[in-house]
């Protein structure tokens, strides 16, 4: 999937991008299909299994799209978290 970015610099990962917007579309769609697919499958309707299979495929695609970016954000943020936590405690103690 060349149109999906795999390698992210920290600055790039911090910006909202098409990968995020695609995920915003796919994610609720997967929930919707999961809800319907489970119901129809339990009622032994053939299209229930098809719906579940589509939701599984979309889930796989969604993770392929968003996971590299989430990994990059997490890696970069971990380095700053200690400093941010200190800031947080200062606000909590009315020192800032």
């Amino acid at each position, binding site marked *: 999937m060349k149109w999906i970015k795999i390698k992210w610099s920290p600055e790039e990962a911090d910006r909202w991008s098409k990968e995020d917007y695609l*995920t*915003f579309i796919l*994610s609720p769609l*997967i929930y919707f299909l999961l809800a319907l697919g489970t119901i129809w499958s*339990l009622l032994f309707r053939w299209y229930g299994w098809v719906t579940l299979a589509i939701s599984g495929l979309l889930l796989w695609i969604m993770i392929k799209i968003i996971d590299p970016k989430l990994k990059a954000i997490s890696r970069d943020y*971990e380095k700053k978290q200690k400093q941010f936590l200190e*800031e947080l405690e200062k606000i*909590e103690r009315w020192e800032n």
Partner: protein
Amino acid sequence: MVSFAWLDWFWLIVFIALMVVCGVLFYRLGKRSLADFFLAGRGLPWWLPAASVYATHSATDTPMWVSGVIYKYGLRGIWYTFFSAWCAISAFASTRIFRRSLAYTQAEWQTLRFSGLGAELLRGWIAGWQVFMNMFVLGWVGMAMGKLCHYLFNWPEWVGLILFSSLCAIYVLAAGYWGVVMADFQQGVVAFSVIIIVSIWGIVAAGGPQQIIAKINSLGESWRLNPLAFSGWTSGDFPLVWFLTMLVIAVIGGFGIGTSIDWYPEAQRIQSARTVRDASYSIWAGSALIVVRNSLWAVAVLAFFSLYPRIQSTAQYEMAWYRLGFEFLPVGLVGFFFAAVVAIHISTISTHLNLGASYATRDLYQHYFRPRASDKELVWVGRLTTLILLLGSFLYGLMMKEITQWLIFALWIMTAGIWLPSILQVVWWRFNAWGYLASWMANLGLSWLVVWVLPEFRIIPVLPDYLQFWIMMVLGALIYLPITFMTRPEDMNRLVKYYVMSRPLGWWKPVREEAIRRGLLKDNEGKLAGGQL
């Protein structure tokens, strides 16, 4: 009434002992610090908070509520339960933003996003409201257990309310959130397994899918089999416009912070995850399990309808899923089922005990009374407030009668007027604390007026709930938007700090440019101006 064999009692006692001991085992971790007592040290892999999201939102009253809407509306009632879809977008939008803020609670987040007196008033208000709300939830969930025990064993309702909540409080008091999340994992696995077993058992007991469909068709009620059987655009008991409203609320609500009453327990799970990625996946996966669980229940309740199609009393058909378990499972498995019901129950109780205590301790006691209190002192305050919440919940529980009515009111109406402001505070830099505070105050008044007071005096007709939502949203905006523009924007220093830390999406251009000017962020060409936070 249900009679237990010795094997049933065996399952029940073993399960309760396991759950309580599992929680207490984490006593040493829970007492290490405030972050351990309320967030498990911010170090959990995604699947632990995910199990906790799932377990917490599977309460004793949840199958009653789902049974109620499916029995009444058929499979289209599943959309009443689809509010959990707010996590679909939240997992990758507001969850990421909130996790990066590192706030313990949503109330604390208000003082990171906003500044000055408005932010402090907001924090105090949300913390106080959350202490009340958690006690309220504990009361209604506890009372659902009281009703169930009355149905099963003919115990007075207060016995079921007090007994199981008190057992659960043992490990919450000892180990705090460590106990909650570890017990939740165990309870989530047990509960999900039993939900699958009982639902499929019920479907088989009703003769299987073909028999259920044939029976419902023969009753002339085939519309019950269609999840998308709307009664018209605006007419009938299930109009399409209701469905679209619900989708907007649930899905778009994921961009906001505090758009749903479920946001508050989720916020704690988000912060307990070890990374931003873990936080996102925990919220997504936990809610996906909830979506699947609701569908399992829906088909099981449909099976129940095919067996008992003419029940008129809400209180009776709300027990549909429980009746499938207790009336059709064989001896020995009934105790296993009840043990799972106890697991479902105490996973919710434990969460709300710890969550309510976190608002009382972090946002009220520490922030406003003892800012320099040691971690040891704060952990003890956390325990004391847990105990107060437990006792308060008994009082609330004994005051409640109708579960479905309260739940629908809370899910739908009480959040209507603050739904949009909860999104605006995330996506729009100019929205300020006074605007958000005004939306809360306006909503409290408007919701009672529009839903109960004005229709009671025949000034307006009783409106369908989707119309109530849109009316309250517009009326609320007429109050909080002018207030926002009439008051100053938030302090730019605070906004820049918040932006650099959380990287919110939406309309933040002036703040982003200021952050670049101060050298805190690289510009679009990747250059850094140089500066200090």
